[in-house]
C-alpha cells in the first residue's frame, strides 16, 4: 500500500476537507462523476487528480482500485471491477513508485494519454490490471490479465487469465487472447448473436445480485 500515487501536490483545500480517516491522505479526484445507481463497496479505492466518471450500475468490489493519477478514467454502464483489480494509467507492474512519481512530474506533456475508457458491461476480474486506452463493450479481462497502455480492445473480447497484452496493441472485436500470446476470433459469438444475448442477460442478473449482496458505500464518495 506504500505504492500509492505519491501525494506530491495534494490541493491544500482538499487536504483540509472533512473527509474522515485514511481516505483523506489520498488525493481525491478533482471530480468524480457518479451515477446514482453506482455500487461502490467498502475499501474500494478511487484516487488521482484527473476526473473519474462512473456510469450507471457500475460495480466496484472491495479493494478494487481506480486511479486517475496520470489520466482520466471513464467506466461505462454496467462495468464490474473485481477485488484487487486496477484500472487506470500508471498502475501497471512495470512502473515502480519512483518512475511513477517522475512520470507524474512530467505528466504535463509526455504521458498525457487519453486515459482509460471501459465500455458498457466490461468486466475486469480479480488482480487484473487495465491501462488500456479503450476496452469495448462486453469484453472480459480475466483474472490476473494485464492490458498495457494505449491498447484498444474491441467489443466482446476475452483476455484469458494471466495473459499480458503489450502496450499499444489493437484487438479487433471478438478477439480471444489465450495461451500467452495466441489470438483467435470467437466465431461462436460471431455466428450466434443469441449466445451473446444470453451472456449479457447473465451479466445483468449478476449486477442485480451484487446490489443485493454487497453493501454500498457510495455515500462516502458523493460528498
Amino acid at each position, binding site marked *: 500500500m506504500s505504492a500509492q500515487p505519491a501525494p506530491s501536490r495534494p490541493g491544500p483545500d482538499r487536504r483540509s476537507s472533512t473527509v474522515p480517516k485514511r481516505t483523506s491522505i489520498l488525493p481525491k479526484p478533482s471530480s468524480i462523476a457518479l451515477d446514482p445507481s453506482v455500487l461502490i463497496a467498502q475499501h474500494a479505492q478511487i484516487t488521482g487528480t484527473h476526473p473519474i466518471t462512473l456510469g450507471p450500475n457500475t460495480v466496484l468490489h472491495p479493494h478494487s482500485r481506480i486511479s486517475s493519477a496520470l489520466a482520466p478514467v471513464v467506466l461505462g454502464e454496467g462495468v464490474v471491477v473485481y477485488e484487487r483489480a486496477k484500472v487506470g494509467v500508471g498502475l501497471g507492474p512495470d512502473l515502480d513508485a519512483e518512475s511513477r512519481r517522475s512520470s507524474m512530474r512530467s505528466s504535463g506533456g509526455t504521458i498525457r494519454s487519453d486515459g482509460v475508457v471501459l465500455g458498457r458491461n466490461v468486466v475486469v476480474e480479480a488482480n487484473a490490471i487495465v491501462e488500456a486506452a479503450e476496452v469495448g463493450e462486453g469484453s472480459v479481462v480475466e483474472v490476473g490479465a494485464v492490458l498495457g497502455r494505449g491498447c484498444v480492445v474491441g467489443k466482446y473480447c476475452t483476455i484469458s487469465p494471466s495473459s499480458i497484452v503489450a502496450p499499444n496493441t489493437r484487438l479487433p472485436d471478438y478477439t*480471444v487472447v489465450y495461451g500467452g500470446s495466441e489470438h*483467435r476470433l470467437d466465431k*461462436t459469438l460471431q455466428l450466434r448473436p443469441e449466445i451473446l444475448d444470453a451472456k449479457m442477460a447473465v451479466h445483468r442478473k449478476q449486477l442485480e445480485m451484487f446490489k443485493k449482496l454487497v453493501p454500498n458505500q457510495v455515500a462516502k464518495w458523493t460528498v
Partner: protein
Amino acid sequence: MAQSFPYTYYACDCYDNNTSTSAKRASQILAEADEEDRTFDPRNPRSNYALYPLEHLLYCDDCQQIRCPRCVIEETLNWYCPSCLFEVPSSVVKSDGNRCTRNCFNCPVCISPMTVNSIENPDAPSATGGPYILACPYCHWSTIETGIEFEKHTGVHGQLARVANGGTPVPTPKEREKERERRKEFEARQRDSRNLLSPSQDSPTSDLHRDSALPSRDDVFSNLGAFYKSQIEAQTPSNPFSAHDLNFSSPSAYSRIMNLYSSAGAKKQKRGKPSPMREAASELEGLHVYDTVSDNAAIERIKRDGWGSTLSQTQKLAQIDPHANFEDELRPIATLLCTKRSKRCRSCRHILSKPESKITSTRYKIKVLALSHIPRLSIRALPNNAAPSTPSAPSTPAFSQQSFSYSNLRSGIPTHFLLQLSNPLFDNVRVTLATPSTTPGKIQTRVTILCPQFEVGANTDVWDDALSSSVPSATRSSAADGQIEAGKIWDRGRNWTSVVIEVVPGFLRPITGFGQADQADELDEDDDLLEIPIFVRLEFETEANAEERGLGDSRGSKGEKEQREAAFWTVVGAGRIAAM
C-alpha cells in the same frame, strides 16, 4: 541436470550389473570397484541414465538395493478417464480404444477440457433443454464453429460419431455397404453402356462423379476395408479347419508361422501357395488417386483466409484425421485414458509400489521408497566464518555469509562444504565415504573429505532424543569451536552427522600458458560444473528378518542380529566454477 545447486543424485548400477544382482554382496561390489579402480564418472554419457534424485527411487527389500525406473517393471492395474474418473474395463479398451467414450473431450485448439453447454432458446424451450454444444471455457472454441450441435447432454461421444462437421450425418457401415453396392452396380452398367457405344448422360452419373471427387477419409477407409475383406474371403476355402488351407487369421496360419521358427526337423507336407492378391484398383475399392484439385483448393483457401485459418502442428497431431489442415476440419478430441500402475522389482518380481485400485483414491497400498531405506546425503556450503576466502572478492557481494553463490565457485580457492548424512533406519550406521582426489573431467578439482569414516545415529523416536539428558558429546564435533579439523566430524544430531569436505575448484584455463591459448582444450558445455562422485558404504547391524533366515532357524532365535552392508555411488552437484 537442471536442478538448482546443491543437489545429490544416486547412481543405480542396474545397467552394468544385470547379472543376478541379488546374489552379490555389497562387499563384493565394493571389492570389484576397488579392483578395477573404477570411479563413477558423472560425465560419462551413460551416467545420465543411472543418476536419480533419491525421491525418484524405490527400494527392493529382498534384493536390498535401490530400484530406479529402469529396473522396475510396470504393470497396468486399471484404465480410467482422468476427466470423469470412470474406470474403463480393459476389454472395452481393447474394443473401443484408449479414449473416453462418455462426455469427456479436450479442445482441439488449446487442449483444455471442454464443457457441454446448452444453447436453448429461452423463448422456445425444448423438452430436453437442448440443443447442446461442446465449448471450451478457455479459448472459447465451440462445436458451433464446425456446425455441430447435440440433442442430449449425455452420450456426446456417440452423438459426435454420427455427425460430420457441418452437421451432415455420418453413414453407418451398413449404409456405406449399400451405397457401395449401388455404385458398383451403376459403374458396371455404365461400362456395359459404354461398350454399346452410347456414353450415357444420365444425371445421376455426373451427380455421383461430383461427390466422389473428394471421398472423405472414412469413405476411403471403409472402401479399402471392404475390398480387403472380399479378397481374403476369395482366398478362404470352404472348410476353415482343413489341414491344407492357408487362409488368414486361421489357426493353421499361426501354426505355419510357428513352424517357420521352430527347428526344421520334421518334413513339412507341401502346401499350395496362395495366389497373390491384387491391390485396390478403383476408388470403390479404396484406391486414393492423388489429385491436384484438393491442393489447389487448399492454396486458394490460404490465399483467401490467411494463415490464421490453418492448424498448428500440435493441433494437427492431436486430430484423428492426420490430413486436417483447416480450422473447420477440427473435431473435439476425446480424452485419452490414463492408467494406474504397480511396479515390481525386475530381478525378483517383488511388488515395490501399488496404488489403491479405486480411481478416486490417490493413496498407495504398497510403496517402498528408497527415502526410508537409504541415508540421505546432502551437501551445502559451510557457513563462511571459518573459510579464509571471503575478503578476496569485494566485487561480488552475493558471495557473503548469507547467500553463498553456488554457481560462482572460484578457481584455486579452497572452499568448504558440509556433507550431511541423515539416517532413516532404526539402527546405528557406520559410514565410509570415498571420493577420487580429483574430479574426473577436464577441470581437475581437488576434493578432500576431512572425516571419511563416521557413525550416524539411529532414527529413534524424536522424544527419545529430547528425553535423554546426554547431549551428544560436543568435544567430538568441530562445529562447537568453529575449527575445521581433519578426522573430526563437524556436527551431529539424533540421526544425522555432518562432515566437512574441502574443495579446491580447478582452473577453467590452464594458468601456465597465459599467452598461448590451448586450442585443443576447448571446454564443452557443463565442463565448469563441479560434480563430485562420492562412494558411500554403510555397515549396520539389524534384526534378522524372519523370511531371510529361512525356516530352519526361525524358531527361538528372536532378536538375533545380522550384519548388513550397502554400498552405492552418489554424485553431488556442488556448483559451477566461475569463469575468470
